[in-house]
């Protein structure tokens, strides 16, 4: 009887949720590449829009999957595939995961996944932490010429402005998606 119960025990993640995470990871990656291609490379507008789209999609994802671990799993999958297929940096993977775990902890403390404010704050904190950690990694790479970090920091700050705007566009997107019946919460 115990064996039967063990077999029918529901796993923490169901397949639908895992598929949503995989598809969002793909959408985020393709959107970033698309913005970079359409925007003509590195310029403030491209940087702003790339970050805006990233946080917008992250907010939509967390609205759709209100579950502890969604953000970290999304980041892990995205980083793993980026490193394997698109040449993403491997040094940044632990930093990104750590930022994700801290942000998810904060979401739980502030109000849980049912609170819109907590979700937006979690995404904002994740993005800030990951950018700070990336700056730390950049400092390690550029430590002989630390003044170069000033330029990197300027770019990162412009990107973060886009991320903050993205929190609100994400909320707007969720309203539209709810209206269309795609997001049910």
């Amino acid at each position, binding site marked *: 009887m115990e064996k039967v119960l063990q077999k029918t025990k529901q796993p923490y993640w169901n397949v639908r949720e895992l598929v949503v995470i*995989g*598809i969002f990871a793909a959408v985020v990656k393709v959107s970033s590449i698309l913005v970079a291609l359409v925007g003509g490379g590195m310029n403030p507008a491209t940087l702003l829009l790339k970050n805006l789209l990233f946080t917008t999609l992250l907010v939509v994802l967390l609205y759709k999957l209100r579950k502890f671990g969604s953000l970290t799993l999304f980041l892990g999958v995205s980083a793993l595939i980026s490193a394997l297929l698109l*040449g993403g940096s491997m040094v940044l993977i632990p930093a990104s995961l750590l930022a994700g775990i801290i942000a998810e902890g904060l979401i739980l403390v502030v109000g849980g996944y049912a609170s819109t404010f907590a979700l937006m704050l979690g995404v904002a904190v994740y993005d800030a932490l990951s950018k700070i950690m990336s700056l730390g990694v950049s400092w390690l790479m550029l430590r*002989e010429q630390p003044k170069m970090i000033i330029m990197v920091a300027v770019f990162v700050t412009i990107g973060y402005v886009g991320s903050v705007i993205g929190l609100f566009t994400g909320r707007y997107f969720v309203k539209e998606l709810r209206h269309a019946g795609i997001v049910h919460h």
Partner: protein
Amino acid sequence: MRALYTTNTVAPETPLHHLDVRTKMTISAVASVVVIFLKSVPALALLVAASTLYLMFTRRWKIIIIAYVAVMLMWVGAVICMELMALVSPRMAASSLSSLMLPFLRSLVLINTLLAMALSSRIQGILTTLKALRLPYWLYIPAAVMVRFLPSLMEDVRQISEAVKTKGYSLHPASLLLAPRQTMRLLFVPVLFRALRTSDELGIAAELKGVGYSNNISRFREQHFSNVDYGVLALSTGLFVLSFVINAYTKLSTYMGM
């Protein structure tokens, strides 16, 4: 991005394609840590030379040239900015040529090893590797969905862009800069809607097939390290050790004023 379209049938065979993806992952991961510790130009130059040779085995010359030109442009831009900052405040000037070279060499090693892995990894290879890594199903399923969905999403984007063009809108860098809201509405909202619909359909289909209810993933193709993999790993280890020796020797000679 072209690596995404690489399939088992159309990809050109290069020596790197025969290497196990785990070997390439290990080389990239170790290289990204090693370059942080190296502080001498000769040690990093050795790794740049070796990693360039490694990248050249992919024979994707066009992509390699584009990547190198992009890195050079970024570096020239950084140096110009440093010079401009030095004009404003002399304290901001670059201290020496070697201190300008070191970050550049570090980035080159990383780009070479990562590009080599990205340009020689096939989608089926990645999926087999993910299985070989014995990842739990909750990590394997989203990763596999992402890998499989990327080409289909690119096709969706292409179709949406064509539909936008037929309606009389044009998508180019200027439109993104001058009308970002309109570009987002025309391009990204349909992509998001389509992706969400697909995720629902795919999720239901996977659930109906019972995916995720078994902890054991059956393996269609088992992956094993070959002698070439062991050889490449041994060679890379030797190069990393040698670069550390050169680094220590250079530091010692500088310290002793040689």
